[in-house]
């Protein structure tokens, strides 16, 4: 049976890893389970999207109405008029990009330093860096806030950006990657008379593109989601970031679900688009971080 089907497809081009000889019931079951789970994952989105286009009267109908009677954009218009969402959005972009750039610089430099130079106290310092990963933000938030207040950085971009300027995880990621760059390559450049900063800039960095892009994705994503710190540092509309904007909207107009969902949808779209475009890199980033358990 298996052999005949194989030959019965004259158009089959090239050898496939698993020709589909007959229905494998195990696979069918697997697909059913995967699709069922996909539906569960997508349902909240569908609910959000459909609600964003509904009128307030339509929100909680029985049975659940998945497709609104008409496409109604009023919620988006009213929400944008009531709250400076675009301002929050640009604040998030400015803070997110600055934090990411700062992290790329500090983490790649430190990762290189820890990976390739056996200076005195290196292991101790690296251990301390890793240990800071365990410090919960809420455990140091009071003194951190006092420091930022003392610097006069409350309600400034500085206050939102600088404290997030490096990350232990990022240094770890870069170090793991840069340790795999062959020493011979660096020594050859040294013999040619290149200085250490130049070796870093023209050999090490270009070889670390994958790790750098993974790091950028991670840092940007985490920062985009950050709430507790902006909540303390950005007290006015001027510096408030997008998640805070959504939370604020939620607490003041929380029962106006169509508008809240419109705001949530607007807040979500940029991240979703970036993710779908870069999704391969996302997974690569995750894999890189997961490799070294």
């Amino acid at each position, binding site marked *: 049976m298996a052999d005949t089907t194989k030959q019965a497809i004259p158009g089959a081009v090239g050898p496939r890893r698993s020709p589909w000889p007959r229905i494998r019931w195990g696979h069918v079951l697997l697909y059913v389970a995967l699709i069922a789970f996909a539906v569960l994952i997508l349902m909240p989105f569908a*609910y959000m999207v459909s609600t964003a286009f509904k009128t307030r009267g339509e929100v*909680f109908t029985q049975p659940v109405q998945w497709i609104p009677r008409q496409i109604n954009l009023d919620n988006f218009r009213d929400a944008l008029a009531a709250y400076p969402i675009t301002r929050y959005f640009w604040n998030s972009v400015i803070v997110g990009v600055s934090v990411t750039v700062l992290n790329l610089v500090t983490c790649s430099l430190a990762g290189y330093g820890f990976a390739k130079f056996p200076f005195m106290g290196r292991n101790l310092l690296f251990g301390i860096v890793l240990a800071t990963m365990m410090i919960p933000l*809420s455990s*140091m938030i009071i003194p951190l806030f006092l*420091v930022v207040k003392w610097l006069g950085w409350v309600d400034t971009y500085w206050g939102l950006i600088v404290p997030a300027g*490096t990350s232990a995880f990022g240094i770890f990621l870069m170090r793991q990657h840069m340790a795999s760059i062959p020493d011979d390559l660096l020594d050859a450049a040294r013999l040619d008379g290149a200085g250490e900063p130049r070796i870093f800039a023209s050999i090490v960095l270009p070889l670390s593109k994958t790790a750098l892009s993974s790091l950028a994705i991670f840092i940007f994503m985490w920062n985009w989601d950050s709430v507790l710190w902006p909540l303390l540092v950005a007290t006015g509309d001027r510096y408030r970031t997008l998640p805070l904007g959504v939370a604020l909207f939620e607490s003041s107009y929380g029962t106006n679900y169509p508008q809240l969902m419109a705001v949530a949808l607007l807040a979500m779209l940029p*991240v979703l688009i970036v993710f779908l475009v870069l999704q391969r890199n996302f997974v690569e980033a995750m894999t890189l971080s997961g490799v070294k358990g």
Partner: protein
Amino acid sequence: MSTTVDPDRTIDVVGVAYHRPRLSHMQKRNLWGFLFTLPALCFFLVFAIIPIARTFYLSFFTFSVVEKPVFAGWENYRALLDDQRFHASLVNSFAYVFMTYIPVAIIALALALALNVRLRAVGFFRTLYFIPVVMSWVVVSAIWKMIFNRQGLMNAFFLEPFGIAPKNWLTDQDWAPRAIVIMSVWKEVGFFMVVFLAGLQQIPSDYYEAARVDGASGWQLFRSITMPLLRPTLLFVSVIGMITGLQVFVPQWVMTQGGPVTATLVMSLNIYQTAFVFLKGGTAAAMSVVLFLIIGSVTLVQFWLNRLGAND
């Protein structure tokens, strides 16, 4: 070798005359290495190490965030012993961690095993399951607050059609924590699925082939190859789950503000409210120290257990 190095050295000595103990090439290079790490180390010093040290220090004082601290000795810690809100937050945080991350780990491992099979559209499912991970917690919490409304999706779609009485998800002391757990499982599964997938792909496929030749069943393969070789991944998952779970803040802050009463008051939310809403900085600092010690010791215990297990 020495001939090529010598001119360099003389230049050095002439150029930096005060630099009497000459640095060897190796030392000079290592100095560069240290300089490379310096910017990051400065950030850590100012924005992590000094603050955590200050938290320990401030936990021995009474102060509101706006006033001058007054020394109080162990008073803040003694007060925590009778602090009902603090006790509730401890219990709630641990309950949240176990109720969320054990199901998350099981579902994520199952999905990873399913997606590790060579099937069509595996990439599509992986991407899809990962979507909740990249969304911000605030947006997710807003959506689920609506889902858990008395007339929302959860009651109207999953309970009532099956004749189950609707629940007051977010206003009932028993159901509010469960509601947040359900949401968190939905949000976190994708992340751990990818972590497990990465771990599974590290296992050489020859192991499976060899075992299959010997007639091992699927379950035996899973028990004696997959699970033991997945140990580092499991450690990673349990440590990350614990650390992130014990720090959870946003869902409780957005969905219930810790309520009803203290049913969903978790440690981070309690610290935030104590410090910046009730303005009891010293108490909050003491709570922060406790949280720090809990997370530190839990992580160490997990590494230690893993080492014990690995030696078997």
